[in-house]
């Protein structure tokens, strides 16, 4: 039977827009935020643990110097490969959009193959090739069947995309048009506009301020030279990690990693993304837009990946507004007042301080009431913290998610890539639950006060101002 495909932007109407769910998911902000951080890893029952680690991740460096990470999962005939480069939009410099368009151009042309030939080959093998850009990373992924023919041919083609890389004017102009359409789609989406404005407000001059898609003026001006320059600077083996997961042996994975090592230039690691300056004043921005709802976002930059305060902050955020139907904000704003369909809070650690945000949408004439409710509640939460019962329930919930959040090959591949890219220890999850369970209400009060309560929050609204 047909698997419903995820289509670009907004075309899969039936499933993206027509199915109604009781609870608004965070997907409205998916332009910005790829994965909810801090979700737990998996415990694969059938996976023999090496050295008693939860995830038997193996890692090595190829003879050329490429860092490879490998996790065997042998219950389905699937192999997932990800190459992750420190080449996200934070590296755009003064050319917003360059990271995005360069990443989109991978797999479009090589010295001997056209786009038509490349996509026909992948798809005739039943393989799925995709690319993705976030603020920190640029990713090139392949999902393939693990049967010899399909696996070998699709992985060889993937490595050919790098070893014979070549960008053409024709593909560049096509990708520009695609990107400009995506930008136009954003400009009629209140969610996207509000989210972009929020990042701009809280990050000011920091590279995280600009949207991953870039801006129309810049995109028009990109030349092949720009693309080649960005590619050569960032798509190198010193600036990459290779993740191989699925139905494949260590030996085969090593051979594949050597092939990718040979396909990529040596290059150099990207420079550190600059540190984030926390806003020194309380900012309030409003964007006038003729929507029926006002979109409200409140927050600021908080935690970077690997910050030990993450566990307390994550747990606190779950209780405050992270956990859907059972969060405090859900109860206060939706259940008690009927003021929003979608209300939640998120913390998204990045290489540098990622945002904490509360967001909701409400009819224009109720926005003042809703905003006051949220801000008052946040103040109360920071000063009183969760009750022991709330704390215990949230810990139990996280323990359950620990089992379920990564029960698939696809999720495991993401998990390994996250640990590897952010240089978290490979045994990160061994004591994850112990760290969650050790968090006290006082810890939550402390971290929320330190990162939120004692700082200046930004408030961004988009909609029709009643005044």
């Amino acid at each position: 039977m047909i698997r419903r495909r995820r289509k670009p932007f907004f075309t899969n109407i039936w499933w993206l827009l027509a199915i109604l769910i009781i609870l608004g998911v965070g997907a409205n902000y998916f332009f910005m935020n790829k994965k909810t951080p801090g979700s737990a890893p998996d415990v694969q029952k059938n996976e023999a643990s090496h050295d008693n680690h939860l995830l038997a991740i193996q890692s090595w460096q190829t003879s050329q110097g490429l860092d490879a990470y490998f996790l065997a999962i042998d219950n389905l005939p699937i192999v997932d490969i990800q190459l992750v480069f420190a080449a996200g939009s934070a590296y755009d410099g003064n050319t917003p959009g360059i990271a995005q368009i360069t990443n989109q151009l991978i797999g479009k042309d090589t010295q001997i193959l056209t786009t038509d030939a490349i996509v026909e080959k992948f798809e005739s093998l039943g393989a799925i090739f995709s690319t993705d850009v976030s603020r920190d990373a640029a990713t090139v992924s392949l999902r393939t069947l693990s049967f010899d023919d399909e696996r070998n041919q699709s992985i060889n083609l993937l490595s050919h995309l790098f070893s014979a890389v070549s960008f053409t004017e024709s593909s560049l102009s096509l990708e520009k048009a695609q990107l400009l359409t995506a930008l136009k789609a954003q400009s009629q989406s209140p969610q996207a506009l509000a989210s972009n404005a929020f990042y701009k407000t809280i990050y000011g001059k920091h590279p995280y301020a600009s949207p991953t898609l870039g801006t129309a003026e810049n995109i028009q001006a990109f030349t092949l030279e720009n693309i080649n320059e960005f590619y050569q600077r960032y798509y190198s083996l010193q600036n990459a990690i290779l993740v191989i997961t699925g139905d494949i042996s260590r030996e085969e994975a090593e051979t594949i990693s050597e092939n990718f090592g040979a396909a990529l230039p040596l290059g150099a690691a990207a420079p550190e993304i600059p540190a984030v300056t926390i806003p020194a004043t309380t900012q309030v921005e409003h964007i006038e837009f003729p929507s029926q709802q006002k979109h409200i976002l409140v927050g600021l930059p908080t935690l970077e990946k690997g910050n030990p305060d993450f566990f307390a902050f994550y747990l606190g955020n779950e209780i405050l507004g992270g956990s859907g139907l059972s969060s405090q904000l859900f109860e206060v704003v939706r259940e008690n007042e009927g003021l929003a369909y979608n209300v939640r809070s998120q913390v998204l650690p990045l290489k540098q301080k990622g945002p904490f945000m509360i967001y909701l949408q409400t009819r224009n004439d109720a926005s003042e009431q809703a905003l006051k409710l949220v801000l008052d509640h946040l103040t109360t939460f920071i000063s009183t913290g969760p009750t022991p019962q709330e704390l215990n329930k949230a810990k139990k919930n996280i323990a359950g998610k620990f089992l379920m959040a990564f029960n698939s090959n696809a999720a495991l591949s993401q998990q390994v890539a996250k640990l590897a890219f952010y240089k978290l220890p490979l045994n990160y999850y061994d004591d994850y639950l112990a760290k969650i369970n050790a968090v006290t209400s006082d810890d939550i009060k402390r971290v929320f006060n330190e990162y939120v309560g004692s700082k200046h929050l930004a408030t961004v609204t988009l909609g029709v101002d009643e005044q």
Partner: protein
Amino acid sequence: MFTRSLTLLFATAVIALPSFAQSSSINTHKYQLDNGLTLIVRPDHRAPIATMQLWYKVGSTYESTGNTGLSHFLEHMMFKGTKNNPGSRFADTIYALGGTLNAFAYFDYTGYWQTLPVEYLETVFKLEADRMQHLIVDDEAIFEKEKQVILEERRLRVDDQPITLTYERFLATAFNSSPYRVMPIGWHEDIAATTLDDVRSWYDTWYAPNNAIIVVIGDVEPEEVYELAQDYFGNIDEKKLPLVKPQPEVKPLGQKRINVKVPATLPYLLIGFHVPVLNTATEFWEPAALTLLSSILDGGQSARFSKNLIRNTRIATVASTDYDPFFRNANLFTLSAVPATDISMYQLEFALLDQINQLKIELVTPEELDRARKQLMANEIYKLDSIDAQANELGSLESVGLPWDMGNEFLQELLIITPEQIQHVAQKYLNPDYMTVAILEPQPYD
């Protein structure tokens, strides 16, 4: 390790599924309780969790004029408590056991799902059985607040989204007599006018074991799940369900066109053709041929829309097809597209219809057909990586009155469809004289 080649499977057993897709089918157990409740169980022992979905055969296509959005409204009210589990205890209990949950309302069904550590599966059965019988819908204040939540949901998902707004009007134009003319969320004024009694009576009418399907996938033994179902749902009385009228779409008598003028930045084109689905097809192969036709046009980046319209002629920046053969009643084959800069809507429509016309005058090539089939086969395997995707397939098939294993039977049919059959359905159904066209004409923001 799996070292057998898929190509080999193709060659030796075109009609057979790959072994694991098939073994998961063999591994699926269907039961029916005396009160009519259907239970489907598929073990998946990869992690110590289970997902339980409870599907009711009622959705927006069961609703009448003036009462649209009722099934979705009820879905929201199902989280408001029973006598034994008042208020938000259902959600709170699942949460505290380490589970996640949500619910959905669609044209032909309404569903509720929970995923949690498998040791607590019994609690879900207990809670869902209680909610099937004892929902309390009597508090006006709670009801009015939830109505506001639903109106916010409509503003968020429809009213402030130019594409969805266009799509809503497109459906209302394409269908005259069929209930697929209304989106599941319902019209704003109908939601606003819904009463407590409407919702309670909708619940009393449709929520019964003989109108429900339970799907469980996870680290379970089928017989044990069957015991759970017996224990908690076995003694719920069946109800006499209303007769569901067929409500077919009247035969279109000509082309229908609308413009939607709202503030927006991207023009957008929708074209719909009335086509059969599995439930209405007189020939089983026709929905399969339409599915492959859809795949030939839009089954990936090597398909015709991407290759011809987006990459080569550059007429469109987005171009897709939509066809789902798993509805209760006849539906649409839909084309949608966004024009490239400087391309008029007229040129875009002409180009899309030209792609349709090509299918009528020339047979698709063996390479295209092979590629489409290979992707369908591979997707069957990738689908096994997601227990949600599997549960959704089993539940939606049973909910629209098809057996759960129709997915496999249909896949086998896809593998033997010929180029001539694809040409035949293109000629028979994709006729511009009877299509519906909707054009989103962006208006300036003031």
